[in-house]
Structures are given as C-alpha cells and as structure tokens.
C-alpha cells in the first residue's frame, strides 16, 4: 500500500492550504468567540469545489476521491475545525443521497449541494439510548402516500442552516432500531422545528441543535433507500464520518504541535530555547508521532473506501486511537507552552475545545470499539 499522495492529491492539499490561509485563518478567533455561522467561508468553499468534492461530475461534483477528502479535512481543521465540521456533515449527507438516493432525489438535491446552494445535514442521534428506541424516538408512521413523523432528533450539526436533512426514524416503535428508516426532509417542511442553538464547548460556528417533528408529513418519495434499511445506512455513514472526524483531529493536533514547536524554539529559559530541553522534546515528539501515525491510519481507511473494500474496522481503529490520544495531544502541547499555552490569547485553548468537540460530539460512546472487538478473530 502506497501512503504517498499522488500529484493531484498533493495539489488539492495545497489548494486547501491556500484556501484556509486566505478564508479561514482570519476568522478562526472570531468564529470561536461569536459562534456565528460562517456564511461567506461556506460560499467560498463551494466556489472552490470543496462542497462537492466526493460527488460525481454528473451532479457538478469534483470526484476527487476520499483520500483527497481526508487531506482537505485535515488541512481545513488546522485553521478552523468548526468549518471542517460543517463540511463533514454536509458531505456525509451528500454521500448518503449519492449512495442510496433515487435518480429523482439525486437530481433534486446533489447539483445544489455541490454548488453550496443546499447545505446538507444528518439527523442521527436521539436522547434515548439508540436511534429508534425510547420515549423520544422519532417515529415515522406509514400513511396513504407517505409518512407522518413525530418525535425529536438530538445534536444535529448544521441545524438551521441546512436545506436538506437525512433523518433517521423508526417506522415501528415496537421494533425500534430494527425498523430504522432514512428519509430526506427539506428544511422548510411544515411541523419541523429547529430548537435553540446549543452552547457547545468547541467547534463554535458549526451550529448544533435538536430538531422537533410534530405531525410532519412527507411523501413516499422522501424515503432514502428501502424501508427498515436505516441501520445499514447509518452504520455506513458513521464509519465514513469517523474517517473524516479522525482527519479533523489530526489537523487540530498537527496545528497544535507546530504552534508549540515554534513557541519552544523562541522561548528562552536557563539561557537557551526550551526546545533544546529533553522534557520538551519528548512532549513534542510524542504528539508529532501520534499525528503522523494517525494520518497513515486515516489514509489507509480512506484508500479502502476509494477502492470499495471493507473499511469499517480500520475506520473505527483510527477513530478510537484518536479519541484516546486527541485530548492528550492538546494537554502535552499546552504543557510545552506552560502558562502562555493556558492563556486565551494563545490558540491552544481554542484547539483544546475543538478537539474535545470533535471527539465527544462526533463519537458515540462505544461505537468504534464494538466494531473492532467483533473483528478480532
């Protein structure tokens, strides 16, 4: 397996880097302070084809492949992880439509999603133990010509800004998750209400909210995939998303260690830069090594996705690895910068919050470990 990026993948990474320096670096601090949705940056992302990166050229996408996608997400995350999170959630929704949508659904949504005219979101989680189970479960009851939805989805990213939601609901409360089904629901559908934007610890600017469904009537044509195919779809989507989230964590970790290394070279203590002290070198070396190895894991999983091979276990492994080490990367880099690293005028506290957001909000408790444990012969 070749872990080197191709010439095109390197150039795409360079475009992402140039884009992030021009459009994201100047807004990163403001985004963290205000939490306002970065409309101009999202528009610019679309103009540079980042929102249609995985989509087929038939629908106006770039067809750049998943390895390029991981490279782009890592790069954007070095500058503004909240924007990378917006892109991730949009891309997963677009991927779901491209993969399981009917020709009509693809024509209806994908060209607009590639152009950034329609932002995508997925509504997976609920306040119950698992989607489709519990008192708050979103239930979609069959009726003449379609379904009627009642219940609530939790922690929906891009909520309030998305034009289309990939919504998972059980069509039979008695069967719960076994009857989980995916639907495409337009933002303006009557009875659908986006709740107040959640005050989150990190990834500010990527809106998170609950969505309530009260007698939301959707047509049969809104069904994504087959009835009761929801668990298959959501499992695949979460695995796809976990690779992108791992790339997001690597990006934040890489930005943190580069900042800490630069600080250590210019911070003089005991008559010499602290970068020459072995204790500091150990901290920096461990974080840089973790980032490097995780990046190879991300590329491995991304390449398997591109080649159409089973990738779920590898995706779970790299995600699980980073859930364990992501926060440690930030503790170690803050440690290098000491009191300054802890101060809000430096970027590490923001990165700390963003890495926590990536690893907590985007990682359902035991999802990766279940897959990994089951795969061990």
């Amino acid at each position, binding site marked *: 397996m070749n872990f080197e990026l191709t*010439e*095109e993948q*390197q*150039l*795409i990474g*360079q*475009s992402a880097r*140039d*884009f992030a320096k*021009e459009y994201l670096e100047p807004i990163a601090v403001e985004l963290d302070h205000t939490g306002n949705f970065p409309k101009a940056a999202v528009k610019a992302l679309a*103009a*540079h*084809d*980042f929102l249609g*990166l995985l989509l087929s050229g038939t629908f106006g996408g*770039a*067809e*750049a492949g998943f390895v*390029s996608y991981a490279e782009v997400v890592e790069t954007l995350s070095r500058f503004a992880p909240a924007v990378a999170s917006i892109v991730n959630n949009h891309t997963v929704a677009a991927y779901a439509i491209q993969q399981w949508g009917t020709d009509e659904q693809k024509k209806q949504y994908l060209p607009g999603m590639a152009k950034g005219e329609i932002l995508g979101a997925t509504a997976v989680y609920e306040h119950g133990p698992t989607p489709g189970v519990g008192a708050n479960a979103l239930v979609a009851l069959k009726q003449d010509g379609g379904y009627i939805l009642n219940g609530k989805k939790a922690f929906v990213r891009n909520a309030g800004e998305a034009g289309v939601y990939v919504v998972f609901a059980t069509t039979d409360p008695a069967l719960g998750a076994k009857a989980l089904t995916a639907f495409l629901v337009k933002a303006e559908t009557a009875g659908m209400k986006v709740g107040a934007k959640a005050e989150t610890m990190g990834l500010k600017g990527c809106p998170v909210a609950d969505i309530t469904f009260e007698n939301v009537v959707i047509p049969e044509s809104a069904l994504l995939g087959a009835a009761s195919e929801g668990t298959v779809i959501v499992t695949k989507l979460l695995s796809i998303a976990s690779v992108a989230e791992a790339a997001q964590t690597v990006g934040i970790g890489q930005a943190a260690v580069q900042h800490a290394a630069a600080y250590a070279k210019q911070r003089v203590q005991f*008559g010499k830069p602290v970068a020459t002290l072995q204790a500091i070198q150990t901290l920096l070396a461990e974080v840089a090594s973790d980032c490097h190895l995780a990046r190879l894991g991300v590329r491995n999983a991304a390449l398997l996705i591109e080649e159409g091979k089973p990738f779920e276990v590898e995706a779970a492994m790299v995600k699980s690895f980073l859930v364990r080490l992501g926060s440690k990367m930030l503790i170690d880099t803050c440690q290098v910068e000491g009191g300054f690293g802890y101060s809000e005028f430096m970027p590490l506290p923001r990165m700390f919050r963003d890495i926590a957001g990536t690893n907590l909000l985007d990682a359902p408790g035991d999802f990766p470990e279940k897959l990994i444990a089951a795969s061990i012969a």
Partner: protein
Amino acid sequence: MPKCLVCYKWTLDEQDIKIKPEDLSLDSSRAKGKISDFDRNAVEEAALIVEKEGGAVEVLSYGTAAVKLSLKDVLSRGAEKAHWIADPSAENADAAVTANVLAAAIRKLGPYDLILCGEGSSDLFNQQTAPRLAALLGLPCLSFVQKLTVEGSTVTATRKLEDCQETATVSGPVVISVLSEINKPRIPTLKQVLGAAKKPNEEIKIADLGLKPEDLQPKALRQSVKGFVMQRRNVVYKESSAAENVAKLTASLASEGLC
C-alpha cells in the same frame, strides 16, 4: 487577442529548507517544489488578460528533471498548454544560460504577443531573465510592472521604480516582468486541479534548440551556499539609569561600526 507566453521557474519551497547548525549548509532533502512566487503572479496576469481580451496562455519552463512536477500545478492556474525543457544543465545555470535556453525555445515556439516573467525567482532573485530575454529576442522590455493593461496590440504598464512610478506604452510584442503586487494569484479549484491532467504539455529537447556549448556554460559558478543564522549576544545593561544604559548600548554599537 493576445497570445501570451509565461516563463516560470520550479524552485524549492524555502520554508522546507533547513539550515544544519553544525556547518550552516542547507538541507533540502525534504523540500517540496513550487512555482516561483513572482512567476505565479505572471501566470495569473496572463490568465486575467486572456479572460478579458481573449487569446491564449501558454507556459514555458527550463529546469532539471524535477520541472515535470510543475506541469499540473501550472496548468491548473489558467494556462492552456505547457512547454518544458528538462536538462541537467539547469542545475548550475545562471541567468545568461537560462535566457539563452528560453530565447531559443521561444524562437522555435513563437511568435507571442506578450512574454511574461516574474520579476525575480524565489531562490536566486537575479532579476535578469526578462531583460536578457528581451535583448536576445530583440524585443522591448518592461520590468518592475505593478499594473498592466492590454487593449488590442497596445500594452500600457505602470512600473514601480525606486523613487517614482512610470507609465509606459508599447505596441507589439514585448517582454514583461511583474511584481507581486500586480495581482493575487488564484487558488485553483478542485476541478481546475483535476482538469490540469487533461491539458496538453510538450517536452522540448535542449539538443533541438540549436544552442552552442558556450550558450550552456554559466558565466558565474556558484561555489557554495550557506544559511544565515542570527546569533544573540545576550548582553544586558544593568546601570542605575536608563541614560547610562543607552549610552553603553550606543557606545557598543559604535565600536562595531553600527551607528
């Protein structure tokens, strides 16, 4: 509709070059290549002219075998066709050799209405390619250009000189070297990056350019390159008054001829 040719150089990214502390030699083993910074401005300016006036943008580069790595990058930035000359002579080429090779290639490929270059390359910054090219091709040269307007066959350039701005108008074929402030190079979109592989590129063999051996012989030979490292003196003046500290500092600087 102008037919434009942009000459560009594929250089090492200086950010990736490390200075070895033991002997100040340069370690470029991990350095990636890039289109020389000002040359990106030249490619962008040609693309902007053609977007406005019509015409075509071609690019030309002379370098070592690594020059081939530049093709997709440069073709994603608005050029329609790339010509490249890969030859070991480029390793030690000075500005005279570079201009000889480029001029010979342009005589073979041309004619062009506008030949654009960056004001200087990111690595050597000799600022000689454009004027030497113009001399060899018998064309007028506009250097230090910070603004360019093309209307029909009339080229109007604003040149940034040491103590003034000069506006010059030229009719007909011309060699132009641009400054970085002339424009902001575009960030290629993903489709432009992926579409670059489908654009034509053509290798020109140096042997086919009719050059004499002396044309490829550099007049100046680089003996060595060493990094520059700032060293701190770590001197602290601790006199009782600021005036005394300043006096000591200025005396110290004066003793070294620095003030």
